[in-house]
């Protein structure tokens, strides 16, 4: 078989695992793809290289393709998300100082109480909280703002969100440049080990099914390379399915640790894949349900309603015309291509490409193309529900 060479940019985080597994276990090769992984020094560099065609595909923060398509930050280019590569997997942590102050208000860390935690945060701190995130257009920042803005005592000037490259997050915490952070693994674990930080919440406690990384591709390129895009979706669907089998976790850890692409030791990869999160140095790890997920509950499906949710946050931040932003965002999430790639090989898919975000408090049986499948939970910490089909939106 003649192999099609493709270049995919990524950042060395645990959640780039589907790409490494697709390459190492030859899921990409089976689809006729010679997958070349290209490590990028920053999200900005990854974005620019995608925009200028130096890479074909990219492991991206879920809001990035939408932000680019809306012309926010850097080069305005229409970029599509072919699939979701992972949901959840982020953690929120605080400095030892802030933790002491919060404990004085009577708060204890249960790692699953967003409302009690945000109340304690604002009660404890007399000055603005300086919070690090990996990139301005990230689910990290969206979750943080969604969560904190609902807290009693919140005011815009009480938080200051800044971008700190994840490998520098632990140092910034140790030096006191940050009070708090939201970051993907392994960097939360590193902050616990090296800067005395405590993890106070997993991102999934704010939104139980938040699309974290997506597979980005230029819209024009996708149109010209439709078959290659579908082959890539199939390869990554198989890789994510493999990754979500618990019996494969030990092997996945050693493949990722040995891979030249990640350059992380076993103990930095383990917590994200086993969902055993150590929230404070010297304490036993906590089993954290719904942590980093690759496949289960249609995790890969690029829901149009997820795109709408992201569009609403971006509209709010940048004073955009909301309906138009939603329309552009929904066109980015290519559930059509995703279906076209996977339906023929017998992958069960949701019946609709839209759901009411936040409606499922528990795993829920819903109708699928092949019968029934389990979706959710996808609830928000405050019970908020987003029904985008209720408004006057064009259907894709």
């Amino acid at each position, binding site marked *: 078989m003649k192999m099609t060479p493709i270049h995919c940019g990524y950042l060395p985080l645990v959640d780039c695992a589907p790409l490494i597994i697709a390459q190492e276990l030859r899921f990409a090769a089976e689809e006729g793809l010679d997958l070349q992984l290209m490590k990028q020094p*920053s999200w900005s560099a990854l974005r*620019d290289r995608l925009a200028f065609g130096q890479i074909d595909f990219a492991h991206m923060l879920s809001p990035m393709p939408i932000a680019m398509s809306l012309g926010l930050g850097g080069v305005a280019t229409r970029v599509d998300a072919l699939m979701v590569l992972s949901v959840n997997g982020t953690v929120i942590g605080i400095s030892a100082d802030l933790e002491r102050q919060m404990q004085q208000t009577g708060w204890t860390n249960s790692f699953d109480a967003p409302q009690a935690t945000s109340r304690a945060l604002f009660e404890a701190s007399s000055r603005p909280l300086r919070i690090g995130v990996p990139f301005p257009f990230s689910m990290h920042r969206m979750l943080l703002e969604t969560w904190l803005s609902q807290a009693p005592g919140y005011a815009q000037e009480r938080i200051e969100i800044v971008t700190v490259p994840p490998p520098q997050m632990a140092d910034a915490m140790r030096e006191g440049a940050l009070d708090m952070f939201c970051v993907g693994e392994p960097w939360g674990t590193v902050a616990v080990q090296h800067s005395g930080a405590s993890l106070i919440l997993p991102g999934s406690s704010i939104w139980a099914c938040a699309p974290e990384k997506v597979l980005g591709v230029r819209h024009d390129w996708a149109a010209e390379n439709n078959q290659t895009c579908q082959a890539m979706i199939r390869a990554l669907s198989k890789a994510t399915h493999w990754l979500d089998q618990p019996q494969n976790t030990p092997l996945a850890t050693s493949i990722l640790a040995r891979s030249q692409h990640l350059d992380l030791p076993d103990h930095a990869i383990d917590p994200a894949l086993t969902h055993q999160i150590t929230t404070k140095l010297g304490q036993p790890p906590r089993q954290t349900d719904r942590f980093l997920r690759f496949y289960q509950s249609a995790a890969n499906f690029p829901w149009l309603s997820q795109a709408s949710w992201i569009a609403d946050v971006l509209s709010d931040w940048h004073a955009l015309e909301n309906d138009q932003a939603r329309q552009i965002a929904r066109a980015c999430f290519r559930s059509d291509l995703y279906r076209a790639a996977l339906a023929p090989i017998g992958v069960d898919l949701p019946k609709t490409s839209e759901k009411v975000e936040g409606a499922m408090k528990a795993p829920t049986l819903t109708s699928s193309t092949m019968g029934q499948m389990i979706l959710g939970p996808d609830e928000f910490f405050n019970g908020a529900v987003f029904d985008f089909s209720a408004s006057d939106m064009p259907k894709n």
Partner: protein
Amino acid sequence: MQNDLNILVVEADQTKAHEILEALKDGGWQNATVIASASALERILQQHDPDIILIDLANPDRDTLEHLCFVSNARKRPVAMFVDQTDEAMTQTAISAGLSAYVVNGLQKDRIKPVLETAIARFNVITKMQSELEAAKQALADRKTIDRAKGLLISARNISEDEAYSLLRKTAMDQGRKVIDVATALVTASELLQ
């Protein structure tokens, strides 16, 4: 006229920073400042209020810089990546050279372009110099390893230097490997056995 442009260069490598600054000064831009990292960026943006910021495409601090430029209210004037203001070919050239630039919206294209051309030219020279330096260092290190391997063979097998080298080369050819790889393996093995 161009001299009054306020240029900020973010670069941790002092030699490289010096090179770029010099190129800009030679080009007639006197108001150029260098900072080593983005950690002090917020304060410096307020103090200097630069018209153009130049930063290595591969610099991990770029994400921090973007956040400050696009999102925070540290500056009132909006900032764009230069592609919005100049032609795409120029952007391609800059990205290939490893340069990214941020300019204040509304700055005239004919004032930006010469700055970028100067910076791109110098970036290309620096990259070439660095890769030549790397290659030279590597060659020197390889030669040392091969000399050590030859020395090991000379004393172990009581052969001449030429014979030792021939033996390394023949082994490399037989195994389809490079001479340096065979030499490295030999040196590592002998260190382990000591």
